């Protein structure tokens, strides 16, 4: 398989790589370069300041808070979302009772209905979702507290986004809500393709559903789970967490910095405070954190591929 190989490689890579280098890599390199300047973002003048921005970042309390919250997002969100999605997908595809004459394994009743419905939030822009939930969390007349009052829990009226100890979890719940459906569909696809005789064999061994899940489903689905994990973590560190925090929270980023995440801080420094250079410095930190996250997940998740 050697002849013409390199011509082929270059031919296939040139266009995607060129486009990517031009529109993504090059602007990013420029903006990393700005992190060594005092660029404000509002005028073409700036000068080099060496590592000043980086030194400042290390002393910046809000930066550390935002880093903490971002890490929490990257750890908790994928775990919760993917566990829920695996559970639902397993129920939908394998969880059904066996019926006489039916296939050996089957989903619960109404599984195709669930598969359609669960995907709904995924087709909505995250900004829309955030607006919807900001409305639902309204402690005075919002849907959630009204519902609580309606079922006789009038004394339980949390402040939700107004409470520093709840706000971050409220935000995460919204992200879980909006992403679980996608993973359910993705995992369902993977599960449906696992050969039925594997299950039969397990069942013959007397395995119940829980152990079937851990012995068969999860290992065979591991690749998909891992990709999903990285994808979700990156979303949680970046784009998605920005939209929800920016739209829903007090301040935004509050109350009392309880929901500040790195990407929000980048935005505020660049677009509110006229400190674009410092913003790119935090952006570089975010880049490092994300790459570390991806590397750790890939490494931890590395294991023998299963054949069947």
């Amino acid at each position, binding site marked *: 398989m050697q002849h013409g*190989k390199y011509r*082929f*490689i270059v031919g*296939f*890579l040139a266009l*995607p*790589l060129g*486009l*990517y280098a*031009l*529109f*993504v890599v090059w*602007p*990013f390199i420029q*903006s990393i370069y700005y992190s060594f300047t005092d660029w404000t*973002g509002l005028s073409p003048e700036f000068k080099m300041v060496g590592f000043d921005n980086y030194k400042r970042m290390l002393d910046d309390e809000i930066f550390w808070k935002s880093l903490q919250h971002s890490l929490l997002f990257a750890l908790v969100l994928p775990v919760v979302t993917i566990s829920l999605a695996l559970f*639902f997908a397993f*129920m939908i*595809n*394998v*969880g059904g*009772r066996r019926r006489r*004459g039916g296939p050996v394994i*089957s*989903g619960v009743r109404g*599984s*195709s209905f669930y598969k*359609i*419905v*669960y995907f709904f939030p995924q*087709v*909505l*822009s*995250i*900004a*829309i979702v955030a*607006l*919807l939930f900001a409305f639902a969390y309204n402690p005075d*007349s*919002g*849907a959630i507290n*009204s519902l609580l009052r*309606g079922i006789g829990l009038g004394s339980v009226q949390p402040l939700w986004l107004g409470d520093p100890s709840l706000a971050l979890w409220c935000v995460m719940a919204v992200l879980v809500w909006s992403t679980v459906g996608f993973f359910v569909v*993705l995992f*369902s*696809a993977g599960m449906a*393709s696992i050969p039925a005789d594997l299950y039969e064999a397990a069942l*013959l061994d*007397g395995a*119940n559903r829980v152990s079937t899940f851990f012995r068969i489903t999860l290992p065979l689905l591991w*690749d998909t789970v891992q*990709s999903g994990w990285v*994808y979700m973590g990156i979303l949680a560190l970046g784009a998605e967490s920005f939209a929800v925090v920016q739209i829903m929270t007090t301040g935004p980023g509050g109350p009392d910095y309880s929901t500040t995440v790195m990407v929000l801080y980048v*935005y505020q420094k660049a677009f509110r405070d006229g400190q674009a250079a410092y913003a*790119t410095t935090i*952006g570089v930190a*975010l*880049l490092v954190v*994300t790459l570390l996250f*991806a590397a750790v997940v890939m490494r931890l998740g590395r294991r023998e591929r299963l054949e069947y």
Partner: protein
Amino acid sequence: MKTTETSAPVPAESGASVSKVDMPTDAPAKQKKEGNVLNVFSHGMLVLWAFMVVMPLLWAVMTSFKDDSSIFSSPWALPDKLHFENWARAWTDANMSDYFLNTILVVGGSLIGTLALGSMAAYVLARFDFPGNRFIYFLFIGGMSFPIMLALVPLFYVVNNMGLLNTIHGLILVYIAYSLPFTVFFLTAFFRTLPTSVAEAAFVDGASHSRTFFQIMLPMAKPGLISVGIFNFLGQWNQYMLPTVLNTDPDKRVLTQGLVQLAASQGYKGDWSGLFAGLVMAMLPVLAAYIVFQRQVVQGLTAGALK
């Protein structure tokens, strides 16, 4: 291999028949009971989640027909009458019809380009060993993690210098570039899982590398393309930062720009009902498209896992 259909008529299930099939070895009654508890619990969870997903959406639809003050005073009550004027206001203020068309053009073009270029790069990175492979791979992966907003100013210059500012095709090229990292990441993993034997056989038969790719590998990768296509469709459909900066011409605005306009005006004018009407308007076609095509989507994904 479809194992998901459950609509087949189910003969009356008695506990006995279940246990008979369920426990082919010897069936302790305890295990059966445990199964039932599990069943009720997990079924309950499924129903609950479906309810949690549907409720907010139905609520948004209902709210789009209410007037502003009743949205707040009685969020769960049905509208006193159907306030269609909310919809009219959102439609005219946000020029939804034009924005839809623009969005379809931009997303359609970008999607095709992303899949074509993404699969080419991913195939090469997954199946060929050459120096710089890892470097290029990580260069692509790295792009997933840097906040787009920081690249906006330099990106503006690049696009401007090429004369692509405020053009649909310029926007398409930028969308493709920013969709490549995830596409390459996903498809590289996918191509690695495809068996090599078929391609090798074709190659031995004298097919060129590119013919092997287009005629053998690409059709085999169709399910992966569908999955990543859905990811990208959703991302590009909802993309908002890039058009804000690169596409300021009011006639070429995309849907998200119109929606953010609506959403921001909510913050200044308190026009909640108009906002909800706009949201629902933007949501329904996508939902409808998903419901119509969900069979293909799910089948595509399923077949993907099947290889």
